[in-house]
C-alpha cells in the first residue's frame, strides 16, 4: 500500500508496563493479556491518515528488561517518534523514566518526538502515580503526555496519532530534511502532488516545504 510518509516509532519503557499490549491494541484493536514477553524487538505497522495523506507507522516494540538495554539501544537510531511508557500502578516504572529519556536522547536523533504514556489507567484503583505527576514530568521534559489503557483502548489511538501529527507538523515546518532517512521519515511513492511537493519517487529529490 502506498503512503505519503513512513514514520519509524519506538516504544520504550520498563518491562511489563504494557508496550506490546499497546502496540497490539493499536494495530489489531484487541487486548491479549497473554502475549509473549518481548526478547529484543518486535515490529508492527499501521496506516493512518493525517491531513488527508496516508501515513504508514512502522513501530518498533522493544524489550524493557534492563540487561537487554545495550542491545535495544541500537534500535533507537533513526526513530522519528517514541512512546515512553510507564505503568501507573507501579511506581518504580515511573521512577525509571529519566534514565529511559536519557537513553533516548543519547541514542536517537535530537528531533525525535517523545510521547509519555501512563498505561493501565483502567486500574486507577491501584494507582501509584498520580496524573499530575505524569503531567509534571512531561512538562519538565518537553514531552506530550497522556494516560491510556491497552486493555480498554482508551487513548491508544490518540497517543499514536497525536505523535504522528506532531511529526507531520515538524515536517511542514521544515524541521526535518525528509530526504535524510536518519530522521526516521521516509517519503513514499504515490502522493498526489501536495503542497511542497516533497514526495517524489524513490529518488526522493524533493526537500521539504518551506
Amino acid at each position, binding site marked *: 500500500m502506498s503512503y505519503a510518509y513512513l514514520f*519509524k516509532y519506538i516504544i520504550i519503557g520498563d*518491562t*511489563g508496563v504494557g508496550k506490546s499490549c499497546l502496540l497490539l491494541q493499536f494495530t489489531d484493536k484487541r487486548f491479549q*493479556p*497473554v*502475549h*509473549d*514477553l518481548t*526478547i*529484543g*524487538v*518486535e*515490529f508492527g505497522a499501521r496506516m493512518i491518515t493525517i491531513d488527508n495523506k496516508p501515513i504508514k507507522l*512502522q513501530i518498533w516494540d522493544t*524489550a524493557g*528488561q*534492563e*540487561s*537487554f538495554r*545495550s*542491545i535495544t539501544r*541500537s*534500535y533507537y*537510531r*533513526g526513530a522519528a517518534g517514541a512512546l515512553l511508557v510507564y505503568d501507573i500502578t507501579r*511506581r*518504580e516504572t515511573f*521512577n*525509571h523514566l*529519566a*534514565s*529511559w529519556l*536519557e*537513553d533516548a*536522547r*543519547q*541514542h536517537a536523533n535530537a528531533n525525535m518526538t517523545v510521547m509519555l504514556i501512563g498505561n493501565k489507567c483502567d486500574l486507577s484503583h491501584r494507582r501509584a502515580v498520580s496524573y499530575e505527576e505524569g503531567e509534571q514530568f512531561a512538562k519538565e521534559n518537553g514531552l506530550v503526555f497522556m494516560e491510556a489503557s491497552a486493555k480498554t483502548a482508551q487513548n491508544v489511538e490518540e497517543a499514536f496519532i497525536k505523535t504522528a501529527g506532531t511529526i507531520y507538523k515538524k515536517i511542514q515546518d521544515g524541521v526535518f530534511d525528509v530526504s535524510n532517512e536518519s530522521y526516521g521519515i521516509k517519503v513514499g511513492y504515490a502522493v498526489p502532488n501536495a503542497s511542497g511537493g516533497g514526495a517524489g519517487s524513490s529518488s526522493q529529490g524533493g526537500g521539504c516545504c518551506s
Partner: protein
Amino acid sequence: MRGEAAADAGAGYPRSPEPHDLSDDSDYAAAAAASASIHAAIRSDMADIGSEETARVDVVYEKERVTIHPTQYGSSRISGKLRLYLQLGALFLSWEPNEGVDSFSTSSVTAEIEKYRNLYTIQALPVSDIRFIRRYNPTFGLEYIIIVLSSGLAFPPFYFYNGGTRELFATMKQHVFIIRSDDDPTLFLVNDFEDPLQKSLSSLELPGVATVANAMSRQNSFSFAGSVNEARHGDDAKHGGPSSIYEYGSKQKHKLNDPGRDLSLQVLEKFSLVTKFARDTTSSLFRENHSSGSHAYGRQKQEHVWDNRISDKYKDQQITQDDTSVLSDSTESDELLLVWGKKRGSPLTVDEWRAFLDPEGRIMDSKALRKKVFYGGVDHVLRKEVWKFLLGYHEYDSTQAEREYLAAMKREEYEAIKSQWKSISATQAKRFTKFRERKGLIDKDVVRTDRAVPFYEGDDNRNVVVLRDILLTYSFYNFDLGYCQGMSDFLAPILHVMEDESESFWCFASLMERLGGNFNRDQNGMHAQLLALSKLVELLDPPLHNYFRQNDCLNYFFCFRWVLIQFKREFSFDQIMLLWEVLWTQYLSEHFHLYLCVAILKRYRQRIIGEGMDFDTLLKFINELSGQINIDQAIQDAEALCTIAGDNGAACIPPGTPPSLPVETDGGLYLQEDDVL
C-alpha cells in the same frame, strides 16, 4: 521510601556517565610518571603493518604479563604484552601473545591453545574504535579490563598479572578523552578526539559525548586477529582468490598509512586457512551474483526465480545422498551447501533406544546415540528419558538404579532449596527488596510464556505456577545469576517434556551450566557468541561479511534473539523440541547453533545483499523470518557448513563461549553486581 530508593538505584539504570574528573584519581599521578618514561621506538615489525613508509611509532604504555584465560583448558593461560602507542597523532592499542603457552599446561592442550593464540592478538586497534572499557580491581584476585568496541563487540577479559590498569587509564587519559560513569565506577567511556578544539568543545557538552563517539567510529575495522602464522599458511593463503572481493570494502576512514587500515584483510588471510578445496568452492560460490548492492527493481524478480530454481533442484538432490559427487560440480555454487548435509533421519524409536541400553541401563555407545539424535531427533514419548542425558543431568554410564537413587536425592535437594524462598514471610519480604523484585519479575513473565501451548493455556493453569516455582528456586540455587528474561523460554519446553517439577529443575540447571552466560548481566556470553558468529561468517561467506561491515551490521545484534534463546521464537513448539535435542547432542560442534545462524543468513544472503538492506531493514527482515525457516533444511545447511569449516571454524570461537562450559574465575562464575535481579 527506603525500599523505593534502593529499587531505583538497584535496578541499575545507568544514567549517562556524568563527567568525572579523573585528575583526583590516584591513577592519574601514578601514570604521569610511568608513561613519560617509556617513549621507546618500537620494533619495526609493528610499524610496517599496511604502510609503505615506516611512520614513527611512540610507545606510551607497555605492560608484560597481560593475560587471557582460555580456561576451558584448565589453568592454562596466554600471557602477552599490552601496548599503547601513538602513530601519526592517533592512539593505538595492541596486544601480542608471548611465544608459547604459560605454565601448567599439559602438552596435549598446548596445541589447542596455540590455535587460539592468534585469535586474540590485537595488532593495531585504533582507540577511537573503543566505546568503553570496564575496569575491575577486585580486592582479592587479579585486576582486569574488558574492552568493548563501538560495534558492540567485546574482547575477552585481559588480566594484569603485574598490575597496571591504573597507569593504563591514566596514560590513555593523556591522549584521549575518558569519562568515568558516576553510576557504575567500573565503566569508562573512551573517546578519541584528535582535534583539541573539538576536545574542549565536547567536554563542555557532555551529554552528547556518547553519540559523538558513535559517529566518530563508524567503521568497524577492529580485529581479533593479527599476526598471520606464515608457517602454517604457505602459499595457499597468500594468493587467496578472496583479496579481490575485499576491495570494495576499502572505504576507510583512516589515512592510507594508517596501521589499522588493512586489518580486515589480515583477518581474512588468517581465516583462510581453510583447505584449498573448501576455500575455492566457498569463494567462487559466493562471488557470483554480488553486485554493488544498488537496489535495481529487476533484481528482486530475477532472484525470486533463482530461489525457485534452487528449491526445485533441491527436491531432486535430496534423493541423491552422495555428498561428494555433488560437491565436485562446482558450477551451481550455493546448491552445494544446500544438498551437502546428510538427509535428515527418523526420530529415535523406543526399540532403538532399548538397544542402546545394557541390562543395567547404561548407555553403551553414547556417541552413536548422539549421532542418531543429531540426524533424526527423538520420539516424543522418549524425550523425558533421553533429554536428561543430553542435558548432562544423567551420566551416560550410570545404571538405571543409580539414576533412580539420584532422582530421589535430587528431589530432596530441590525441596530444600525451594523452601528457602517458601519460608520467607510477608513481613520478611517487605524488607527484602531483591526478593520482591525478582519474584515480581518472574510472576509477570511466566504468564507471558508459551500460553498458546495447550500445556500452559488458560486461567489459573497449574503448570504456570510450577514454572514460576522452578524459576524462583533456580534464582536461589544460583543467586549470582538470578533470573533474566529468556530463561522461561528455555524452561517451558523442558517442563512440558518432564512433567515433573524437580526433574525439570535439574535439567534446567544443567542447561544453565552451559547457557548461563547468555543471561549474565554484562552480556559477555552473548557478545562472545556474536563475535564468534561474525568470525564464522567472515570465514564462510566473505562477501556477506563485507556487506555487513559496509552497512554497519557487524555487531550481529539482528541475531540476538536467535542466539539468546536458541531459536525458540523462530520455530513452533514441536520444532523447537527437535532442534534443541539436535543442538544438545553436541555431535558436530558445541556451537552448532552458530553454524545454524550462518546457514540461515546464507540462505537469505541474496535478498539481504540484493535489496541492499540496512541495519533496520535487516533486523526487521530477520525478525519476520520467524515461522518461515525450514528447519530440516537449515540443519542440513549448518551441518555442511560446520564440516567445511572444520578446525578453522572451531578456531573462530573463543574458548568458554557458551554453550561451552564457562570460564571459572576467582570471583565466581557470574558477574556480581548489586543490581542483579
